[in-house]
């Protein structure tokens, strides 16, 4: 039942079951139609499927929930990506005069991937993650969630586990969906602090005074730094990792600290020495922030800016399966963020198994249902709605439902406001 039971070879057998009985189509459709204000909104949305053997099929689009369901059940995609809402139906893009087929809107999205932290985590590398480095994702979500809400005023943020080693954020506010490419990149750059590639050692340079946004972000990092960086990653323990940290402080301070460290082995006390130095070396004319710079370089979220910039960029869909781990891309409930455990996210094999286990009981219900002489499609519909509820997927779909309710309230509010205005005049 644990994730280790997932075998990628079984995926082709499991997917049909998943799309037939478990995938939350109703919620999914409710999300992407955004209240149905604009009928074409769902219809002009691009989906892309990755099929067996890495075959990509772009520019899929569907007119109704029913059509989407049928197609997904027919094609059984290994992976689903969501793209932009276009000026025309994406599946007809070849018939439109070139140039007039344009991406118009999309959620503002963010992609944070653990591989981008390889130079600052010692527990794992590349695609591997563990509960220690997962803290980095927790920090990332906290920081970005706060900034997107408080600084940018967005309210409808859907955070999703990518299924393997990262998280995605979908900002679904109307204003966010309408942002231009220039605005998207401005937001992403505002939120990016870690700069530079493999040819840069020091990736964060703070200038004085410290912008309120950075101040807020630092206070989030502070909540985790001692436990995560000093204790778990032990960045001030082993020789090489100490050298890496000291490479980030100015030369004069570095020499002094190296001296101090010879008599002080305790990481937390070493950290205190660094902080003291930062304060001591501070003159009124020039403040020094190297302690803060270290904290941020080790913990600040690393965004893949290119994903956020383009209106037409594709991003893996919520409730898509990760073909390598078998885990479902599930929404993350921020109320329990610190308890979110990527290894506890259900795999497709687990939920399919749970479905099987429930068979006898379900068999019963079925016969009762048919006695009620309900329309057959209805019955199937109802059964499917109940199906996911009997698996570990339920709590994630429930959270998704709550998110959608929030969205719905926002446009109801908008409608009310409009009618109020009308009354006034």
């Amino acid at each position: 039942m644990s994730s280790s039971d997932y075998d990628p070879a079984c995926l082709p057998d499991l997917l049909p079951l998943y799309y037939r009985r478990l995938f939350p189509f109703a919620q999914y459709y409710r999300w992407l139609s955004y209240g149905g204000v604009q009928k074409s909104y769902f219809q002009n949305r691009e989906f892309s499927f990755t099929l067996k053997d890495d075959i990509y099929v772009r520019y899929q689009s569907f007119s109704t929930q029913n059509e989407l369901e049928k197609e997904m059940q027919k094609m059984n995609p290994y992976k689903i990506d969501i793209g932009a809402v276009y000026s025309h139906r994406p599946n007809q893009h070849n018939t439109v005069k070139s140039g007039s087929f344009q991406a118009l809107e999309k959620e503002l999205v963010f992609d944070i991937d653990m591989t981008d932290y390889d130079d600052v985590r010692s527990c794992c590398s590349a695609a591997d993650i563990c509960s220690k480095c997962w803290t980095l994702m927790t920090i990332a979500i906290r920081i970005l969630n706060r900034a997107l809400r408080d600084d940018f005023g967005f309210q409808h943020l859907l955070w999703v586990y990518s299924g393997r080693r990262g998280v995605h954020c979908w900002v679904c506010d109307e204003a966010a969906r309408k942002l231009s490419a220039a605005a998207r990149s401005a937001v992403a750059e505002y939120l990016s602090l870690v700069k530079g590639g493999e040819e840069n050692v020091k990736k964060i340079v703070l200038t004085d005074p410290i912008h309120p946004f950075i101040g807020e972000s630092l206070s989030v990092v502070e909540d985790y730094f001692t436990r995560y960086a000093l204790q778990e990653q032990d960045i001030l323990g082993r020789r090489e990792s100490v050298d890496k940290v000291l490479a980030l402080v100015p030369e004069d301070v570095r020499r002094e600290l190296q001296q101090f460290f010879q008599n002080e082995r305790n990481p937390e006390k070493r950290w205190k020495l660094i902080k003291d130095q930062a304060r001591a070396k501070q003159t009124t004319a020039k403040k020094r922030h190297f302690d803060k710079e270290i904290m941020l370089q080790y913990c600040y979220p690393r965004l893949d800016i290119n994903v956020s910039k383009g209106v037409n960029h594709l991003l893996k869909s919520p409730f898509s399966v990760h073909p390598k781990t078998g885990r479902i891309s599930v929404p993350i409930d921020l109320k329990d963020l610190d308890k979110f455990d990527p290894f506890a996210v259900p795999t497709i094999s687990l939920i399919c198994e749970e479905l099987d286990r429930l068979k006898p009981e379900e068999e019963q219900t079925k016969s009762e249902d048919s006695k009620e002489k309900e329309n057959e499609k209805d019955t199937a519909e109802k059964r499917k709605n109940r199906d996911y509820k009997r698996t570990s997927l339920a709590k994630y779909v429930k959270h998704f439902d709550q998110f959608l309710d929030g969205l719905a309230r926002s446009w109801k509010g908008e409608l009310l406001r409009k009618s109020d205005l009308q009354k006034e005049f």
Partner: protein
Amino acid sequence: MQFASRKKKLVSNPKTELYTEPLQFYGQPPLENISLSEFEAFAVDRLRLLKTVENSGVSMVKRGDDYKKKLESELKALDFPYREDVEEPEKRRKDHISHFILRLAYCQTEDLRRWFIQQEVDLFRHRFKGLSPKQKLEFLHKNNLQYNTISGEEKEQLKNELLNSSHGVSGVSLEHDFYKVPFQDALDLVRTRKVYLKEGYAYIPQSEIVAIVLNDFRTRLSKALALTARSLPAVHSDERLQPLLNHLSHSYFGQDYSGQKNVGKISLEQIDSLAGKSFPLCMRQLHKALRENHHLRYGGRMQYGLFLKGIGLSLEQALQFWKMEFIQGKVDADKFDKAFAYNIRHMFGKEGKRADYTPYSCMKVILSNPPSQGDYHGCPFRHSDPELLKQKLQFYKVSPSGVNQILELVKGMHYQLACQKYFELTHNVEDSAFSLSHPNQYFIESQKLLGGGKDVKRETETPQRSQENSAAKGPAAAREPAAVESQHLAEMTANLETDFLKTDF
């Protein structure tokens, strides 16, 4: 546009009345009748001006003193209104008309529009900043630009946040007004974190008002260009204007380093030694990273792949080259064929919209798409820590005084000059007789000096001639006359397709 098609209608406005303002938003097109020769002369001058704006922006600190001086002297030399100029309706007229002519030439593709808007915005910023405070207010008033200011109470409440947000804005104090605008209207300030943001609003100190005005200017210009583009067929049917306009827009692309003439002149075995001798540092760095890691991320593949194509690798060679490296890494042959080969054929215009990509210029490398985690692309003079750059130069046996000279140039943000200095030092020439603007140019110049010039032919100097030459290129020529612009349009859409591939690797 209008004024071109209404040429027959003679409107002789007393120019002095028309041009009372030192700076304008270019809201109204000129309606007067002008001769074809004046049309051309104005256009060429403005193009020169915009090129100066572009080049100064790369080689100097934007908004710095050198930059200001350079632009002022160019405005003066080309007879455009410049700062000390009090009242010169003739110059203002030229400013007005030439702007609209270039709109016609530069509205045709997304790429051209982007370039034009960027230069016009920079020019506008320079000129707006030159206005006196009184003139600035007048400008806002005349153009109906009204922005909300915040109350004293709100200012007091947000005191710390406001002061801590305006780093780089010298002399911000709470005595001045703060404007509150939706963050979308102040993107440049948001991007650089120069303003305080709260609930979707940006709080902008009065001294930064130029940012909002510019934003307005940019939005209007971009809308206007889209409109102009739609009315273009009419202009293009004018056989006197069309060649002229095409010529104008082509001159933006400059030299052609696409390398079609050199195909097959280089063997794969030569690459390692060429990398040491004749590659600029940016490409040498990519080459080294590729050999060591057997992988490059998307940005690196594009920058290096196109460069290699430019020095003469054929598609077959390129496929072989990349595959040989990648399969030593984490990618097997099958995955390479499925995922990466597409990317490479794409560079050679064999996939997707069949666009032929051109190798990146220094400007593009330096300004766009900076490297992030895991990336080796970019320009080492711009994107490396000075300390690492220093070590690298030492490692490549540059003398200590040479290293210092280079680092000095880097400090002054003269990246291309630094690179050229490196060229001179490593090729033992006092004064290289070219001005570096392209990694492929670096390569060609190096080969010339090292005697490899016969192998790798030099491309032509001027855009006009490169056009002519390409017309005689044989098979490729079939596509050429369709104008570079359509190629670039195709590149835009092709980009759209590769976006998808970008993240997956």
